[in-house]
């Protein structure tokens, strides 16, 4: 009677490759047994050690032997020699070849495209010198509920003197009207201190960057053009340096042009103007800027943050004369440094999205490989007799392996080549879209890294497909030839491999299906969110009034009022309004608010935004007036001290009292405003926000860069040319910018979510399709294999239903196992999708049940359809012939 150890050793011996005969195995077992007897005499511990060493030693030896045999198939010469034969075989089965190459092309192409973007945007360091020391300077202010408040001038000067900071720059982006070069246009621009050039290592293509002197108040106005803008507007002419451009009516001299790869903070910026500062003027507040810095060598971010926090703690001393310090407002904000690596700020949330997409396409590739693996297995089995004959005639194992590998190489090579071409086309199309707002978009391309990735992926696929038929021990040639097809045990093992591959495909497809369902439900909910206004049939655009012409707010108001009147007269227009801030485009400046009678230190001072709007804004935007009233026309012209607040503000500051009649103001600044009405809240930053953003509306049109809204009949863009004509007629030096339907603004706010959802749904559909093909293919094969058996059963009285059920049962187990595994993995991975979800729980059972049902019904249907072929077997035919599949 054999001991447990002997049984284990015997089991391990079964893993030996075919080159080891049964006699060899017996010999080894004999050696083991005799050694075991000797080892037992040395005591339990030594005996245990002996057993462990023997088992591990045998396992390692099996591994070495198998690997050696696989990779000693003679290498390249054998594979190349077999290529013509492999090509012929593939041409003889065009459907399989086409399907295989197509599947791999799509899977490898998708992976390569996503990797190309991932590599350039997320994995590559920023294209500036010493990118690991570049940081984005930011602060949060939990005392007034602000998570990202930017940088102020006062703190900029203080940080510049810190030893932890090698260089620091201040900047903000906005729009300016460009004239003097063709027709007037409003374009995005960057306003920055000259120090940015050193931090980012700017190397102009033409001319020069700004000097430090040009960053001081009173310096002559100069401008630096982006490469794209220079090409587009100036035709790329080399003598542009020294010419003049009018920005907001003021003449600026062009001093330089950027090199093609430079785009900070993103490629929308058309030109750069130096911030002209007065170093002596330092106020701690006025957080209207962004900051970027290079840390001193060997300074970590944690240390940088710490130094900044220390400085912030010292503000009462350094800015002792500041009003906001003396009256306690600054202390209330509880300001903290939130310095992060610049790369994180530039890439932002896109990194997570890229990784999610990469995961999704990787899963599709796995499903594709499993699918093809199964098909390859089936093909290899179909050729077992041929292989046996070859081996009996003296072909070494090397030659046999070579034929399988060369087929796999051709399929993977073709799939990879076509896939890479897809990837290049897709990526180029993606970045060519002028409306694309994507971090580091100008750097995205399918470069050497992505090509290497595609080659590596194709090689891995070739290796996987080539190795698949080798996972079962090969049969002795004689047994195969006698058995006319396969031996029983090998057949069983092959069936198990097939079922495992099926289960794997099904499981992976279920994971993607569940994710797709989750994201689709979430996107649907998000789209249904009421933004608080009516976006249909409304056109929005911005205008910019040059301050050189419209010096005062009154002058701006006069222009704007004339414009609004004229716009309302346009045919097809039923309302026109103006606002300082458009919903879903940001909250604008946010400041702490005081309520009269409560005192500055009463409770938590909530921050709110202050927006200026024309009369009729709420009506044009269909924002409901909930309490009180809308503004009256005279209140705009008289600069009346009234305000309308949104519901979020009213609920936050007056939860138990009537807000009407209360007096509020932004701390320390404007006169007290009397609340005359409460309107519905609108989404200010995204549709996901739960609380409204707390907005105080003031009447007035004295805004130099307002957004205008036109309520139209029919397509809003149809009115665009009329609008442009009208604005030009009022004043040719005023340009409009960013005209678009208001629905586009709403869509843009959920564009990213939609994109992620679409990509995952596509991946899920691909995986499902592949899974179904896999199931169908395998079941059809099983039917073909067992035709004679089926014939016998039918002849003996089994019904067609019985034999169909018999066939289905085999695959049903794999199906159920796959679905089960898929559910478990989905459950575990669901939390990772959290940040894209809206109003849906990642572990909501509906998704898992839904995905399982979809998979069960579709795969079950595929299985049944294929199994039905068993039902049409003619029993006499089946029993008469020995079949080859």
């Amino acid at each position, binding site marked *: 009677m054999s001991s447990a150890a002997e049984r284990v050793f015997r089991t391990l011996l079964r893993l030996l490759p075919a080159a080891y005969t049964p006699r060899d195995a017996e*010999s*080894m077992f*004999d*050696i083991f047994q005799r*050694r075991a007897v000797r080892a037992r005499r040395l005591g339990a511990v030594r005996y245990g050690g002996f057993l462990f060493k*023997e088992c591990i030693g*045998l396992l390692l*030896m099996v591994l070495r032997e198998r690997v050696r045999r696989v990779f000693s198939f003679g290498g390249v010469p054998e594979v190349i020699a077999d290529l013509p034969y492999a090509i012929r075989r593939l041409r003889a089965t065009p459907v399989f070849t086409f399907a295989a190459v197509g599947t791999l092309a799509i899977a490898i192409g998708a992976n390569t495209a996503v990797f190309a973007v991932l590599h350039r945007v997320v994995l590559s360091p920023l294209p500036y010198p010493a990118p690991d020391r570049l940081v984005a300077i930011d602060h949060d202010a939990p005392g007034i509920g602000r998570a990202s408040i930017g940088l102020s001038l006062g703190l900029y000067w203080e940080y510049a003197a810190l030893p932890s900071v090698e260089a620091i720059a201040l900047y903000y982006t906005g729009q300016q009207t460009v004239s003097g070069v063709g027709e007037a246009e409003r374009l995005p621009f960057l306003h920055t201190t000259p120090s940015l050039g050193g931090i980012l290592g700017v190397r102009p293509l033409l001319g020069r960057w700004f000097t430090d002197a040009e960053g001081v108040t009173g310096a002559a106005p100069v401008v630096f053009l982006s490469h794209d803008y220079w090409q587009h507007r100036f035709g790329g002419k080399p003598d542009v340096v020294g010419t003049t451009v009018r920005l907001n009516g003021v003449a600026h001299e062009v001093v330089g042009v950027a090199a093609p790869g430079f785009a900070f903070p993103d490629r929308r910026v058309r030109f750069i103007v130096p911030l002209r500062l007065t170093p002596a003027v330092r106020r701690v507040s006025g957080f209207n800027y962004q900051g970027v810095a290079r840390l001193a060598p060997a300074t970590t971010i944690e240390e940088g943050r710490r130094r900044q926090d220390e400085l912030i703690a010292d503000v009462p001393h350094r800015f002792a004369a500041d009003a906001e310090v003396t009256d306690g407002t600054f202390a209330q904000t509880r300001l903290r440094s939130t310095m992060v690596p610049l790369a994180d700020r530039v890439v932002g949330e896109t990194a997570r999205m890229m990784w999610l997409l990469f995961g999704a396409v990787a899963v599709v590739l796995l499903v594709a490989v499993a699918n093809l693996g199964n098909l390859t297995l089936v093909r290899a089995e179909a050729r077992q007799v041929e292989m046996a004959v070859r081996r009996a005639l003296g072909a070494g194992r090397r030659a046999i392996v070579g034929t399988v590998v060369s087929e796999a190489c051709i399929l993977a090579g073709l799939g990879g080549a076509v896939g890479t071409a897809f990837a290049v086309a897709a990526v180029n199309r993606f970045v060519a879209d002028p409306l694309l707002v994507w971090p580091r978009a100008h750097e995205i391309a399918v470069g050497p890294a992505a090509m290497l990735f595609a080659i590596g992926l194709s090689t891995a696929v070739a290796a996987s497909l080539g190795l698949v038929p080798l996972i079962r021990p090969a049969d002795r040639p004689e047994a195969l030839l006698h058995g006319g097809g396969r031996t029983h045990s090998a057949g069983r093992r092959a069936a198990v491999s097939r079922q495992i591959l099926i289960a794997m495909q099904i499981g992976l497809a279920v994971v993607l299906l569940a994710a797709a369902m989750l994201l689709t439900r979430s996107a649907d909910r998000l789209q249904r969110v009421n933004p608080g206004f009516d976006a249909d049939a409304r056109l929005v655009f911005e205008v910019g009034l040059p301050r050189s012409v419209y010096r005062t707010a009154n002058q701006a108001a006069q222009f704007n009022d004339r414009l609004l009147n004229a716009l309302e007269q346009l045919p097809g227009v039923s309302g026109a309004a103006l606002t300082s801030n458009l919903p879903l485009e940001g909250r604008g400046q946010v400041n702490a608010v005081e309520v009269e009678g409560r005192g500055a230190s009463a409770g938590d001072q909530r921050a709110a935004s202050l927006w200026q709007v024309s009369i009729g804004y709420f009506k044009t935007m269909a924002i409901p007036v909930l309490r009180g009233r809308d503004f009256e026309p005279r209140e705009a012209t008289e600069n009346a001290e009234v305000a309308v607040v949104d519901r979020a503000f009213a609920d936050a500051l007056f939860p138990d009292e009537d807000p009407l009649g209360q007096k509020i103001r932004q701390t320390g600044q404007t006169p007290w405003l009397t609340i005359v009405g409460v309107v519905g809240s609108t989404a200010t930053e995204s549709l996901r926000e739960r609380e409204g953003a707390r907005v105080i509306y003031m009447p007035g049109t004295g805004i130099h860069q307002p957004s205008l809204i036109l309520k139209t009949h029919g397509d809003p863009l149809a009115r665009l040319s009329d609008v442009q004509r009208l604005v030009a007629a009022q004043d040719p030096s005023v340009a409009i910018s960013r005209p678009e339907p208001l629905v586009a603004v709403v869509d843009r706010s959920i564009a990213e979510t939609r994109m992620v959802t679409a990509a995952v749904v596509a991946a899920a559909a691909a995986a499902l399709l592949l899974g179904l093909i896999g199931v169908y293919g395998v079941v059809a094969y099983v039917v073909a294999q067992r035709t004679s058996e089926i014939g016998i059963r039918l002849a003996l009285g089994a019904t067609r239903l019985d034999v169909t059920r018999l066939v289905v049962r085999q695959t049903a187990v794999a199906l159920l196992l796959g679905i089960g595994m898929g559910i478990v993995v989905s459950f575990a991975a669901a939390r990772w999708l959290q940040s894209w979800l809206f109003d849906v729980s990642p572990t909501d059972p509906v998704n898992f049940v839904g995905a399982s049902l979809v998979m069960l019904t579709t795969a079950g249907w595929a299985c049944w359809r294929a199994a039905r072929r068993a039902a049409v077997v003619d029993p006499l035919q089946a029993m008469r012939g020995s079949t080859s599949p």
Partner: protein
Amino acid sequence: MYILLALGNGPAHGYAIGKEIDERSAGRLDPSTGALYQALKRLTDDGLVRAVPAPAGEAGDARRNYFAITPAGRRELAAEMARMDGLVSLARRRKLYGGPHS
């Protein structure tokens, strides 16, 4: 090398070879069954060793594979010994090695 040496005295089965290696190396070399047999197989593939029937007089177990050194194996062993001998002589001449008891 140890395997070839062990077979110098005549054909032996795997267990005996393993035991001899263990004794000759004073316990320093103690390959597992798998490693030992893999080495035997390699030597067989390379033609330095071959499988033989059990010698007369050793009834033994029919399961056991016996191995014997081939003429090629002997030549290989001799060449390797000559190489080592040359190295030992060189070390002696350079007074780096005086023998096992130095």
